[in-house]
């Protein structure tokens, strides 16, 4: 029996409480247990330098990772949750919202912003798992919907970084309909030929997987992220057997054809830029041949 037991995994410090780290503070990787200085870990895009374990990070870190010089304009910051169903379980839904806001300093489980990635204008929506499990209610649906609209109006590419347990139960059917709403908006974006990259991180499940997260022109996943529709616990209970190793992980999804490629977070910005650059170069001039042209070719 060990003397100490790690009860909670991962970074527990709130984003706004993070301070410039003096040397001597350590991050111990929960996967390989190797300690690293926090600075080294942060400079390594919150990836363990030893074993490449990708620590869960929030919208703040992703914005810093993708936007040039961490410069961006946030969209629709002021949309906050209402309580349409007057939902009460062990405590009222509004109390949960207040508690989540206090804990995270966020307004809801997604932030959307526009900025530049390697010089190209881009809209990014990044989900925050720390806010009620990254669950999608009306606010998440609306903000993602508007981010899609923004990308369409400005004719710029869109990246949605998913990290969510699924639909938010406390908004019941309203949450469910956000799946239809975001998917419908993506259909419109698609009709304009604007690229959408779905960037899947650990974990992405439920209603988010069954809507925008699986609708990318490119579905890109961080290594070893849990991605699925039904949660592993539910499936285990249903089939009454242990799940195979690696089930519902990024590599499994790529193997089964649902993820285009897996990307190391440290290379994500360059990889995604490379993709978008190729698309941006596509402008192809077409010439319609007339019968006269055909005749000319035949004669020569």
């Amino acid at each position: 029996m060990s003397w100490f037991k790690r009860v909670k995994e991962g970074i527990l410090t709130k984003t706004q409480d993070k301070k410039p780290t003096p040397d001597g503070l350590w991050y111990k990787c929960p996967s390989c247990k190797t300690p690293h200085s926090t600075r080294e870990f942060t400079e390594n895009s919150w990836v363990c330098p030893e074993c490449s374990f990708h620590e869960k990070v929030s919208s703040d870190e992703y914005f810093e990772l993708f936007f040039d010089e961490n410069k961006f304009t946030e969209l629709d910051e002021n949309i906050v949750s209402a309580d349409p169903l007057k939902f009460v379980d062990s405590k009222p839904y509004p109390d949960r919202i207040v508690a989540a806001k206090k804990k995270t300093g966020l307004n809801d489980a997604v932030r959307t912003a526009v900025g530049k990635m390697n010089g190209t204008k881009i809209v990014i929506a990044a989900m925050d798992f720390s806010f009620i499990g990254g669950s999608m209610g009306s606010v998440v649906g609306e903000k993602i919907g508007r981010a899609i609209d923004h990308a369409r109006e400005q004719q710029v590419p869109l990246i949605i970084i998913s990290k969510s347990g699924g639909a938010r139960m406390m908004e019941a059917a309203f949450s469910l309909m956000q799946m239809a709403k975001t998917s419908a908006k993506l259909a419109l974006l698609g009709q304009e030929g604007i690229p959408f990259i779905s960037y899947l991180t650990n974990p992405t499940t439920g209603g988010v997987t069954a809507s925008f997260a699986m609708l990318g022109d490119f579905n890109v996943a961080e290594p070893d992220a849990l991605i699925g529709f039904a949660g592993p616990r539910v499936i285990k209970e249903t089939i009454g057997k242990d799940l195979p190793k690696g089930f519902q992980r990024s590599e499994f999804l790529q193997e089964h054809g649902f993820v285009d490629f897996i990307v190391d977070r440290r290379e994500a910005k360059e990889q995604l830029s490379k993709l978008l650059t190729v698309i941006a170069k596509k402008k192809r001039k077409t010439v319609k041949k007339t019968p006269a042209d055909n005749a000319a070719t035949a004669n020569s």
Partner: protein
Amino acid sequence: MIYLDFEKPIEELMEQLDKARETHKKGKVDMSDTISQLEKKIESTRRSLYKDLSGWQKVQVSRHPDRPYTNDYIKALTKNFTELHGDRNVGDDKAIVGGLATIDGQPVMILGHQKGRNTKDRQYRNFGMPNPEGYRKALRLMKLAEKFDIPVITLIDTPGASPGLEAEERGQGEAIAKNLLEMSVLKVPIICIVIGEGASGGALGIGVGDRIVMLENSWYSVISPENCSTILWRSWEHKEQAAEALKLTADNMLENGLIDKIIKEPVGGAHCDPDTMYKTMKTEIKRLLKELLPIEKDELVAQRIDKFSNMGVYTEEAAE
């Protein structure tokens, strides 16, 4: 006849009625007065019981083993039905059925979840829980309908999409997501009717349309009351409470602007008088088709996207 727990008073009266009829048949005593009184009493008891059902009671009615299923509606409402099988990729999902038919001469593509009536049949239909190929079959049929300019009718009745190893391997999430996207821009009218259970993404996967309608005793939500109870209260015991909290009845859904219409059921639920149910259903479908068919295609799609875009309740605080 199978009685639900809250139908106990009806069950007792029915037993009395059966006894009275038997005595009458034997011819010794004239029971006709008692019989007609009992019949009246059953009618009024049923009426008062069903006037004000709780959320959980409606969930029970929606799952009544004698309730009409998709195939029953297809048989009763349509002519010239040809069932179309398979997703042209993996296989034929038995939990979703569909095909081409006519309703009073109007061609339709009608499809929906299908449950089974007995143990064997239930397993065959996977309890109405589709795998990805079910959603992909549904989409294939809807695309066919679009090609031939035929309106689509979907009947929703599922406890959820199948949670299993194979479903995940074959991309349950992707299959549903794709349907949501494609249905939102399909260029023919789509009518979606919740005839029983409307659980979560498994229901919505064939539930994006121009008119969303619910039968009086059906339910529609993001999760079943039992599962909601398990997650929020950590036990099944709070399912009644969860059913109330989720606001999953047709009345709630109409109040919240998430559906367009409620179709009345016969007193005691659709299974008590299926013929009346089919008749009402047919009238409603014809009325909805009449409304939707003249709308120009692009306008129809624009209206549909607007409809779903407007769903959601939030507060927008003034910027500081």
